[in-house]
Structures are given as C-alpha cells and as structure tokens.
C-alpha cells in the first residue's frame, strides 16, 4: 500500500514537472490555420512554404488548413498549447479597422508573431483605352467633379488602397474625395468583369493576376493598364529583375511611389505592402514564441526559403515577433489615420 502511495506520489510529481517542460515546445503535430479558404491563393502558398521549412527544421509535422478567417480565429481561440497556429496578412487588422464582423483587435486578443514574407502585387488598373492614364488623372478628375468608380472587395486589403485614393483626393482638394466611390464586388473575376461591363472606371487587382491583361492590344475589351502599385519601392526593388511576365521590375516601379504618387498627408506617399505573419493564442507559452522565432531566424539565415518565396513572387521579410509587433502596430496606426480621415465618405 505504502509502495502504491509512494508510487502515485512520485508519478504525480514527475507528471507535474514534466507538463510545464512539455508545454515549452511545439508539439509533434501542429495545425497551421490560415485566414483564407482558398488553397490556390497567396496565403496558402506562402504558408505552405513556411510550414514546410519550419517542419523540417524542428522535425515535426505541420499541416496547413485553409479554413478562412472566421474559423481560423475560432480555432486559435480554442487552443493555447501551440497545437494550433495561424498565418494571415494585413487583412487581420484591416478587417477590424473597417469594422468587419468576426475581426477583433489582433494586438489585444492575440499574440502577433514573426512576419515571413510580402506579396508586393497589390495594384489598381484601368481599361487601356481609359481617359485616366495615371493616378494623377484620376485625382484631378475627382477634383474637377467627375465621379470615379473603383471596384474593390470591401473591408480589407482591397479597400485600403481605395481609402488612400480618397484620402489623397481630400488632401489635394477638400470635398473631392466624395467623387471617388466604391463599387463593392467579390473575387478578382468579379472585379475584372465590372471593368468589361463598364460598371467601374478603376479596379483593384494584382501584378500576378492582371499583368497579362496589360499586354493585350487596346482594341481588346479585356485590355488593362496599371495606374498604381501600392508596394513600397524598397519592397518592389527586391522583386526579380525580370519582373512579372512581359513587365520588368523597372517598369513596375514606374507605377509605385515615388514615380506614382498617392499622397498620405501632402508630404509623404501612401504605400501598402501585403505582409504575412504568424498569430498565436494569447495564452500560448512564451517559450514556443521564442522557439518559432529562433527556428525561423535560422531558416532565413540558411537562405533556401528565400529562393522558394522569390520563385512565387513573394518578397522574403522575416522579422522576429517583437520587431514584427512594433512594425505592424505602426502600420496599423497609419492606416487607422487614413480611414479616420475619410470616415463617413465611403459611399
């Protein structure tokens, strides 16, 4: 009996000491949920690249699940053991700034982890035969009282550039921002179609999805022209020199700041990089955060992951958790200011 009691006591002590120790490392099987339901999109692709590298480095299994933002946040809420991690991009805080249902303040309710890459492709396009040849034409038209219709998917990454356009119009001429109006659509296909149907003058798109349309002759109904690429020039300069398709990096840079200026405040230009980063349950052990940071630091130091990311037109961008949090908070604050400046004008 004594032996049994001792045995149980010893077992319990061993378990008690073992549990915290086990909690300090990622488990052997990790579920990486992403904020997109598409397994063909940039979030899945980038997450897969990072998951593969991380799994190999740590000798664990990581499965990427494209459950979408709502379900991903729910899954993250349920699990503080490190079994569930999340990768998403700027939509995670922009959704909250735009008041989209299901998006909480990620800086309050979750732990923001390291950034891993940037998709520099966010762009705005017009029909090739459009009277608007540049962003300056668009903002001047708004200033002159012309209504400019911009097709976007509301509530996030697609809308932030539109908000910036309105803000730039406001800075140039107070009240002219009311002439830049949103046409709310869904997928890229829907946005393109609004241009083909003459339901929009400008659409949100991407370098990757729309570049070939810019190569079509002007008499083709489908032909388009870039007017603005929102990425920072420093980001776009890291893209492959050959650019995308038949458009070189130098040509792409013509549509980005400072060559194409959409002002933020009359002095600086507005820019937006779509950045991918980790999100964790706020209760997750700090040691796991450090473990992932350290592993990613080593992975990026080895340099192979950058090649895979660049091959898929991503710009590698590793920042450890602390730096990432500071950087993303600053970014959010800028966009919060832009949205506040134009609030009430998004008609």
């Amino acid at each position, binding site marked *: 009996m004594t032996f049994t009691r001792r045995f149980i006591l010893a077992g319990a002590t061993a378990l008690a000491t073992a549990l915290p120790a086990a909690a300090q490392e990622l488990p052997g099987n990790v579920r990486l949920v992403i904020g997109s339901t598409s397994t063909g999109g940039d979030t899945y692709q980038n997450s897969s690249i990072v998951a593969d590298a991380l799994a190999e480095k740590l000798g664990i299994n990581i499965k990427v699940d494209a459950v979408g933002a*709502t379900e991903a946040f729910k899954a993250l809420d349920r699990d503080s053991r490190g079994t569930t991690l999340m990768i998403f991009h700027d939509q995670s805080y922009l959704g909250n700034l735009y008041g989209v*249902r299901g998006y909480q303040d990620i800086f309050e309710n979750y732990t923001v982890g390291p950034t891993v890459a940037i998709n520099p492709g966010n762009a705005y396009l017009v029909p090739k035969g459009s009277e608007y040849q540049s962003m300056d034409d668009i903002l001047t038209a708004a200033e002159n009282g012309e209504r400019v219709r911009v097709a976007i998917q509301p509530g*996030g990454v697609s809308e932030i550039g539109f908000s910036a356009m309105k803000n730039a119009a406001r800075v140039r001429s107070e009240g002219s921002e009311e002439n830049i109006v949103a046409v709310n659509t*869904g*997928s890229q296909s829907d946005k393109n*179609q*609004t241009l083909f149907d003459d339901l929009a003058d400008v659409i949100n798109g991407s370098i990757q999805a729309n570049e070939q*349309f810019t*190569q079509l002759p002007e008499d083709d109904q489908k032909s388009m022209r870039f007017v603005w690429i929102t990425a920072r020039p420093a980001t776009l300069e890291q893209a492959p020199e050959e650019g995308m398709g038949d458009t070189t990096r130098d040509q792409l840079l013509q549509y980005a700041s400072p060559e194409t200026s959409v002002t933020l405040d009359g002095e600086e230009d507005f820019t937006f990089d779509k950045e991918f980063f980790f999100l964790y349950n706020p209760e997750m052990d700090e040691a796991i955060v450090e473990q992932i940071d350290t592993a990613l630091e080593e992975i990026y130091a080895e340099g192979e992951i950058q090649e895979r990311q660049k091959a898929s*037109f991503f710009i590698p961008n590793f920042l450890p958790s602390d730096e990432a949090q500071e950087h993303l908070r600053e970014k959010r604050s800028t966009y919060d200011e832009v949205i506040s400046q134009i609030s009430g004008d998004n008609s």
Partner: protein
Amino acid sequence: MELLDIISPLFLALIVGGTFVGIVFGAIPGMTATMAVAVCLPITYSLGLENGLALLLGLYVGGISGGMVPAILLGIPGTPSSITTTFDGLPMTKKGEGEKALRIGICSSLVGGLVSLLILWLCAPLLADFAIQFSYVEKFLIILFALTVMAALSNDMLIGIFSGFLGIFIALIGTYDISDGGNGEIRLIPPGLDYWLESGFALLPVLIGLFGLAAILEEAERGVPQSQSAADVKIGSQSTFSFSVFRGQTVNLLRSGGIGTFAGILPGVGGSAASILSYSNAKTFSKHPERYGTGEPEGIIASEAGNNGLTGGALVPLLSLGIPGDSTTALLIGAFTLQGIQVGPLFIGNNPVTWDAMIVAMLIANLAMFTMMYFAIRHIARIVTVPKHILFPIILMMCVIGAYTINYGIMFDVWTLLIFGVFGWLAVKLRLEIAPFIIGFILGPSAEVYFVKSLESFNDLTIFFTKSWIAIVLWVLIIGSVAGSVALSRSRQSTTADA
C-alpha cells in the same frame, strides 16, 4: 521542348495514377475531386509543370467521374456535381440495373468529357471572349433557369416549389460574405446561434446528410433482415447493358456535354449547375419526361455528360483569363504559380507546349477513366450485395470523415451532416421533396449574389429583360422550362384522376 518529349512514361503513369486516385476520392461520399487535387498539389512542385498538370488533370477527371458510383449504387452523390445522377441512378439500382446504370454513366461521362475537350481545344480564347459578355444579370438568369428544374423534379409541384424555396432560405443563413461583395453582416440566424451559424451550412455535409444519413435512418427504422443486401436486389439481375441504350440519345449526349462545358466557362456558375442544367434540358426536350426520376437512362446520360462536360469548360476561363471556372480549377492556379507560370489571356500563346500537354493529358485521363471504370464496374457494383449491417456503418463513418475534412477540419460540419440527416428523414414523412430542396440549397446563394449585384449595378429591375440578347434567350428558355413543368404536372394529375 517539344510535345513528344513531354509525353514520357512518367507523364502517362501520372495521368493514369491520378485518374485512379481521383475515381477513389470521387467514389467515397464526402471526398471530392477538389480534395484530391488539394492533397496532391504539393507533390507537383517536384514534378515540373507538365508532369504536375498530368497528375492534377487525371485527379480532376477521375474525381468528377467517380462521384457517379455512390450516386447510382447508394443514392449518395459522391460529389455535388453528381446530384442529378442519383435521381435516376438509384431507382435503376433498386430495379436490379445498377451495373447497367453505371455503364451508361461511364459512357456518358466519356462523351461529355470528350465534347468539352474538343470545345476547349478548338475555341478556348473565343469562348473566353463570349464568357465575359455574361454580367451579373445574365448569370442570375442562368441560375434562375437552373432553378426552374425544381418544378420539373417535383412529384407535387406546389410542395416541390415550397421545398425548393425552403432550400434557398436555409442556404442563405449565415453571413453575406464580403468575399462575395457583401456587407459582412449575418442574417436569418436564430438568437444565440451566431457562433455556430455565422458561416452558414456547408454544402457537402448537407448533401451527404440528406442523401446518405437520411437513407440509413430510414432503413434502420424499417429494420431490414440481416441477410438482405443494400439494394435488396442482385446486381444486373433485371437487365444487362447494351450500347443500344444510346440509340436516339446523340442529341442528349452532345447537348448535355455542351451545356456542361458552357456552365464551366462561366466563373461562379459552378459545377453543380452544369448537371442540373443538363438534366433540366433533357427533361424539357424528352418525349417522356414523366419517366424522369423513376430510373430513366436518359436522366443519367444528361447528368453525367453534363458534369464531365464541365471539366473542359472550367479550364477555358482559367487558361484564357486566369480565372478558375470552378473550385477544382482554382487549385490548378496554385500548380502554375508553384512553377512560376502566369495564367491569363496570353497563356496559350506563350506556352503552346504546356497547352498541348494539357489537352493530351485530358484526353488520356478521359480514356483511362473509361477503361478503368468500364471494366472494373462489375466488381464495383457488387458493393450493393454487401449486407447492410456491414455496409451502412462504413458509409456512415465515411460520411462523417468526409464532412469533417471537406473544409479542413471544422467540427460544425459534422453536426451539419447529422442535423440534415435527421431533417431528410423527417422531411419525407412530412411529404417535403428532397430533390428540389437541395437544388434550392445549391443555387440559392449564387442567385442572391447575382440578383443583388445586378440591382446594385443597374438600379433598375427592367435590366433583367433589356440587358442583352443573351438575357432574352435565357428568358425564352426559362419560360419554356416552366411551361413544360406545368404541362407535365397537369398530365400527371389527369393520369392520377383517371386511375
């Protein structure tokens, strides 16, 4: 690199292997072609573009075709696009003609696949230009046309239409998603259930709940003796397959393959609409529409030619506009991006060898699908001889696994399966009609988005009649379909009265 250099033993093996795996995925309720492609997508990174595409296209063709097996033998659509196959497939199985029904489905799938492949090969860029003439208005009218099949499928038109609208209503529960251009707000959710229902009910769990679990519950209630098999019949005991069944079906085959292709080229219209539109048309133009739903081979021909017609059609917008035609081809974009290849209006011109390799891969995948399924079907069809007490628990387990995995591990999808299983079982007792219900459920969300977007864009109801000549043609088809259904319903009523 020339095309002949690409067609290596590995290329051929990947197509055949992919087709086989696709058939297995399609044949398991809850597993789909999309899932098969998603699972195998990472492998393509190391295979290179053409070999990777060979594997994925094999999976695609196999997955769409495999869905007919449980649809015909068990009445459970293996994929959403095989839903209309259940309408005549299961009655044929119950009559002891399961093997014959499968062979009809396999041959129709081959013809549908080849028709769409031919159209893809000859006219992809032209069709893409045609597809962009379809704005929200025309897309809404196509969905409305597909919805008219609700009336045609109903035993009692009034109850059928009510069931269809109930399906639409339930499909709209959840969020008007911003990814559809909506406002992101929830609607139609009972108080306190926001957390569970904000994403609404997913299609596949609803489908397998209504068709799979409900049937199992019904059988359980009936309490069948152990010795009996699932279909209560010996396979192929009543009638054997002969190619003569296709006599007089050339128009049906070509029309259904063409309709499937057409549905595929319109992004957002969806794979399920392909077979529903084909089935609806075949019934409208049939000399004996009253036989549809009772085990009519024409119905299987239309459905299977239609859903395989989708395979080539869905590649048209992908390869000519860079826009996927359905959920599976959306994944193919990932395969191109992994290899650093852009898809868009210049793809075919810039990548002629890859384009040719895709056409060859599709052709071989269709032939491989036909060969594998046609000659193995006698063995596959024996599933109906497995005693129910063994078969049904296995099906139930597969349904639960399928429901859980379809959206990458959401437990509420399993609850959805169970809820709709019980609903389907009760609905029959309440004389509700399941076929119109599920059609309403499938098409309702698209109808809503295109209707709202049409009004937002044009702010005028008359636009549905005046937008284009395409709209006029679609209205003619809608009126024809409704008139046909009314005539059929009246003829049924008079037959019942005479009897």
